[in-house]
């Protein structure tokens, strides 16, 4: 059995750990609020953008932009992996990375992969696996993200796609569903997938109403202008979602850690009391035993 002093030190240590996890929980909570505000601010833009783009793509002719055309052979795939820079957020990064990993495994042997990394954890993983990294962006996820980060990165991706550095671009990021739920998602970014899939509801209403729009320059040219931007918009929204997810994942992880600390403190306190009681009993037994002996 542990001595009284040992148990006492242990309790102190656990209490201090709990202070740290609690503080991290609160920091994550306040960052999460900030990230959510950013996401909401962006939603307004994204919705309007999808509405206009959806309506426009219905009007413009087919195959107007090389961004929409799949390459004939898909040999080189590019993955944008969004992870956090820091750990202590439960299985958040592990889930994202395993998502990317299983995507690579599914693709089979003859596909080459390269990476763009947002976040240190994903980059470190790529380095360990020795997969070529085209570009890396550290200290983006989890901070206040500027749109020009997404547009600069997006432009690089589009250039690479157009000059044949890779035939397909997918993005792995974490979708923020609720405080307790963030799921890793994989989405194709280039060539831009046909609109129908995610614009089903809005398109019915928009088409007739946008049909009367006067467009300047022509619808095709407008579309050519907007399509690259839609890539930036998607990238930006993925970054925001990942960032929000990171904070909420960290909050949950720290909350659990604090609870585990509480449990541990309870158990240790019980052990401490037991040890104390045992030593008192032992001392009493000594005294009683001694008295009995004297009486003898």
């Amino acid at each position, binding site marked *: 059995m542990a001595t009284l002093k040992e148990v006492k030190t242990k309790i102190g240590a656990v209490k201090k750990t709990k202070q740290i996890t609690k503080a991290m929980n609160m920091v994550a909570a306040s960052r999460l609020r900030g990230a959510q505000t*950013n996401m909401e*601010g*962006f939603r*307004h*833009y*994204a919705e*309007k*953008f999808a509405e*206009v783009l959806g309506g*426009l793509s219905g009007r413009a002719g087919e195959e107007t932009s090389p961004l929409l055309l799949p390459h004939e052979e898909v040999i080189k795939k590019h993955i944008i992996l969004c992870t956090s820079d820091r750990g202590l957020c439960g299985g958040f990064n592990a889930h994202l990375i395993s998502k990317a990993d299983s995507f690579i495994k599914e693709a089979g042997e003859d596909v080459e992969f390269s990476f763009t990394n947002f976040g240190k954890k994903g980059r470190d993983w790529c380095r360990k696996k020795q997969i070529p990294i085209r570009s890396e962006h550290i200290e983006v996820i989890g901070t206040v993200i*500027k*749109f*020009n980060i*997404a*547009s600069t990165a997006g432009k690089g991706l589009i250039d690479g796609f157009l000059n044949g550095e890779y035939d397909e671009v997918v993005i792995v990021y974490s979708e923020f569903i609720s405080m307790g739920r963030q799921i890793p998602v994989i989405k194709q970014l280039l060539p831009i997938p046909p609109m129908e899939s995610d614009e089903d509801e809005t398109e019915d209403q928009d088409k007739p*109403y*946008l049909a*009367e*729009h*006067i*467009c*300047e*320059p022509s619808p095709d040219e*407008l579309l050519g*202008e*907007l399509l690259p*931007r839609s890539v930036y*918009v998607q990238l*930006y929204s993925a970054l925001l979602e990942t960032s929000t997810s990171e904070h909420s994942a960290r909050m949950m992880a720290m909350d659990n850690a604090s609870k585990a600390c509480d449990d541990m403190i309870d158990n240790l306190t019980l052990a401490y009391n037991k040890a104390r009681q045992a030593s008192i009993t032992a001392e009493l037994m000594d005294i009683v035993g001694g008295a009995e002996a004297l009486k003898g």
Partner: protein
Amino acid sequence: MAGNITLEVVTPEKVVVSEEVQIAVAPGSLGEFGVLIGHTTFLTTLKTGTIHYTDADGDERYIFVSGGFAEALPDKLTVLAESAERRRDIDTRRAEVAMERAQKRLESEDEDIDFVRAKAALERAIHRLKLAETRK
């Protein structure tokens, strides 16, 4: 025709303006256009430049925009821009630094420089500074 339209200027980061205005004039890529109530539905890309509008109280206001497009409806003008700020929010120091940097890039002999981007950056900085100068 009397009446106000709603002007909304939105960037990915925030809603810059959302208010009732009498008239709004925006720099379309094929020329500047003004929007009053009852405008026909119209969609255009925008040049880097200034949107100016007269608010409900009759005051002139200015907003810098770049990289955007605008949608006019009979009662509303929506501008989606990559960056936009009100004249009073323009950061002149930042614009000056950006201008110098862009100029340096354009003058350098380096092959790797993306001239299109540098030029766009220079244009943005010049427009920002010009607009900021008109501040009282």
